């Protein structure tokens, strides 16, 4: 799980071009949208595609995204639970 969270942070920084952000600056429970990293709706689309491309997980209901992309922790939990199924 720790490795997955680290991997997710690396992917988020790279794919969303967060040039000024380092892995250590993203806390596991920091909000990704709004006050935290300040991501927006276009980033949300990038994250949905990332889940599909890199982890083979398709979001059946886009409304789920709000909870899944709350933080790196919630993303990792969701990916782990999907893989277990």
């Amino acid at each position, binding site marked *: 799980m720790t490795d997955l969270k680290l991997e997710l942070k690396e992917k988020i920084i790279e794919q969303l071009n967060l*040039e*000024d952000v380092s892995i250590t600056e993203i806390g596991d429970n920091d909000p990704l949208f709004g006050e935290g990293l300040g991501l927006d709706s276009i980033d949300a*689309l*990038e994250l949905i595609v990332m889940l599909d491309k890199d982890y083979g997980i398709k979001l059946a209901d886009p409304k789920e995204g709000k909870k899944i992309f709350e933080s790196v922790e919630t993303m990792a939990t969701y990916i782990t639970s999907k893989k277990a199924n």
Partner: protein
Amino acid sequence: MTKRVYINSVGSVSAQKTFENDSFLDEITVHYDTTISVISPNYKDYIPPAAARRMAKGIKMSTVSSKTALDEAGLENVDAIIVGTGLGCIDDSEKFISAIIDNKEQFLTPTRFIQSSHNSVSGQIALGIGCKGYNYSYVHSAASFESCLIDAMMQIQLEEAKNILVGGVDELVAHHVDTHRLIDHIKKTPVESSKLLTSKTAGCVMAEGAHFFVLSEKKQASTYAELIGVRTYNTLSKEQLAQTVTEFLREHELNSDAIDLVVLGYNGDVNFDAYYDLLTQDMFLNTAQAYYKHLSGEYDTASGFGFWLASKVARTNTLPAAARLNQITTATPRTILLYNQYRGEYHSLVLLRQC
């Protein structure tokens, strides 16, 4: 009476340190390569990091350049934005298309797509300043920038707009360079910029840059020059050139003797610089001559650097030594003619006058 058109401000990001308007080629960066990149400003000084992270290099360069021009003109907004580009944000276009191929048309993300069109630059500038006016992009190879000038001139003369942001931008990217190397449009061996014209080799030194200007109907303290005329020609033979220039000048009730400075787009390509030689060795033999692509490199909108140079000369009465092509000097370059072409096509003539 037709409205006059004034160049009220300039902004430039180029292979020289031109992003600050208080200097005028005081320090020349000598390049020794077959491709050259811009000397980048600290983009964080101009663009919020959250906005910058999705911007292609062409958009970043243009944002800085256009912001510099708007600030100098004392404007927060304009009536129209007109941008010329040969290739648009080609880096993002290439990455988007590569992603389509690599991912077998699956998993396409929006960011690259948003920026992959040619009009992303004019759109991003409009979004940045909240301009809801006329927004247009001209994609016409080496005449892209001049096409913008023609449009802007007509808009002001026909009283469609009072202040227009006009610019040209192109970025240097790997795949484009690779393909142009394959077809020998880029020099095979590096050349020192100061020796560009004596290299006597084929091809050019490819580069990038963004140059923006505010054109206005009213003269003000920041005014650089008056834009008198612009004309483009998709094709022109060497035999037609002198007569074409003569006719262009005649349209403005001028002849070659009335030109105080001619600014030429020599790019060191031994196969096509002869066009410029025809003017420098005959019609403008006794006229002060300037060139600039040894400073800026070649790209579709490199003539924007020439326009920046000519505007600066008109305002300061100074032609930097690095841009002098011959020994003839002029204390007051009242009337300036610019001529540019690329590989014998997309010729343009632009006429400026001090005011």
